């Protein structure tokens, strides 16, 4: 007390006066970044198989892509891949989820742009990819199979777009249609299966759909009971 603390404080600042400064000279000297530093999200078009895991894992709808079903190939053809960077939280979930390692963060952290449109990155299909494919890959796939696959995909799209209309062909009660469409929205597998069956065997599809609905109803009933208890 009695000023000792004041003098001690003055001593500390004086000591620091002669110490080396720690300021980083940023635009002149770039900072040293850790290897894992997450700057800008980069996408490698060639590796992508358009599986959609990244899109599903993203919490903030940053990622989206467009695909096309080529006639002579079973595989989906990636047309474009969009990273709407303004919503990115740099959480790394997409990178961790990607099975083909085609997403990665680089060390570029200067992300500001003059207009909002520039933040969005759209990767278009490079032209040389198509040329290569046409040269190497002869149409060896079964035409029938690819056609079917295309039909399934179309059906799936239709299902997602307007489930009521298609499901009404199989299920009678409106309540059931609602349940099934909800189920499909939350679970892609269900939707895929129903779409596949709809193309191949309509009767079987109706049966399976009915099965799904009853199972879901049971689940809900149980959940309600559990809640009440």
């Amino acid at each position, binding site marked *: 007390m009695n*000023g000792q*603390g*004041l003098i001690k404080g003055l001593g500390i600042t004086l000591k*620091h006066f002669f110490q080396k400064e720690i300021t980083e000279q940023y635009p002149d000297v770039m900072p040293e970044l850790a290897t*894992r*530093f997450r700057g800008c999200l980069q996408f490698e078009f060639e590796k992508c198989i358009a599986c959609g895991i990244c899109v599903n894992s993203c*919490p903030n709808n940053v990622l989206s892509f467009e695909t096309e079903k080529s006639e002579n190939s079973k595989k989906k053809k990636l047309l474009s891949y969009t990273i709407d960077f303004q919503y990115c939280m740099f959480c*790394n*979930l997409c990178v961790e989820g990607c099975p083909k390692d085609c997403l990665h*963060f680089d060390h570029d952290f200067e992300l500001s742009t003059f207009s909002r449109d520039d933040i969005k990155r759209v990767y278009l299909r490079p032209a040389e990819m198509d040329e290569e494919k046409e040269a190497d890959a002869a149409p060896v796939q079964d035409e029938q199979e690819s056609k079917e696959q295309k039909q399934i995909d179309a059906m799936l799209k239709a299902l997602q777009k307007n489930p009521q209309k298609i499901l009404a062909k199989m299920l009678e009660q409106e309540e059931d249609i609602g349940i099934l469409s909800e189920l499909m929205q939350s679970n892609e597998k269900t939707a895929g299966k129903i779409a596949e069956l709809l193309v191949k065997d309509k009767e079987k599809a109706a049966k399976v759909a009915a099965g799904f609905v009853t199972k879901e109803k049971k689940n809900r009933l149980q959940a309600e009971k559990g809640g009440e208890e």
Partner: protein
Amino acid sequence: MMQSDIYNVNVGPIHPSTHGGLHAEAVMDGEIIQDVIVHLGYVHRSVEKIAESKTYQQFVPYTARLDYLATNLPVLGYCQAVEKLLGIEVPERAEYIRIIMAELSRIASHQIAISATGIDLGATTGLMYGMRDRERIMNIFEMTGGQRLLSSYIRIGGVGADIPDEFIPAVQSFVNDIPKMMDEYNGLMTGNEIWEARMKGVGILSKEDAVKYGVTGPNLRASGIAYDIRKAEPYGIYDRFDFDIPARSGGDSLDRWNIRIEELGESGRIIQQALDNLPEGEVKAKIPKVLKAEAGTEVYHRIESAKGELGYYIVSDGGNKPYRLHVRAPSFINLMVLPLVCRGGVFQDLITNIATLDPILGESDR
């Protein structure tokens, strides 16, 4: 005798010392504060509602935004809550890494509290020293999680990736320097006569009031109750560590300030033990891609965050998203004592009290 007018002064929502978008309306008679009305909600982002539309994994990055100064702590709390809900076992190594990251976050948060108190009371240099030391923690976060502030490194079932090689030396040197940092903060600020005069006896929160209001964390411990969830109800592997809970009895601003500085040392001790006992092995449990809890299950999990008891209450309806998620945010509850501790003090005490109660608005507004 002489009667003066009562007038209201709006401290915030845009004010240099309200630590974010806090709006404290001070009802004043001259320089004496009659009452403080706390208006919250300027940083409301409906985090709890967002949780209902995200899968369990997708919500992890959002939790970091609750307490953005101690990012690993709210993430840890959420991940442990989900693990409790789903019954996921976390590998040993991941548990230790989590402890290290959580305690580093606690230190970072306390350093912000310390340096912010410094600048709120006019000791600008104090701010700079605290920030300088915190920068080392940020560097450690960057090398492990890839991001400096909102690293979202802790994941459900473990951590995002194994620690890099340079991690252990960096943490070790930081832990070794903690006593030096504490000496510096104490020398520059705590021992200073002006500092003591501004803090001693200011904003006294009695033991009874603290309990009544549900205050937790360093603010509660400053009021004389050595309650720490790490000891009272150990989560993770906290029961394996040897550390003390600093507690004071005065409940004034100086005690709250001193508790935070002492906790730096205790966190340093925990990190040291975790570093010494760090086992080898996996860092992430094998968990399914789609996490689903049984319908109707619910869980409440609480951890000792840098600000107090941070709890997550999750209800599941069987889907891959929480049916309801509630966050028990310590700052929100700690802020409620602000009018209580400010009444009768002078205007400058309001700033001191906000600083030493150390609220974080991301958490209290949610």
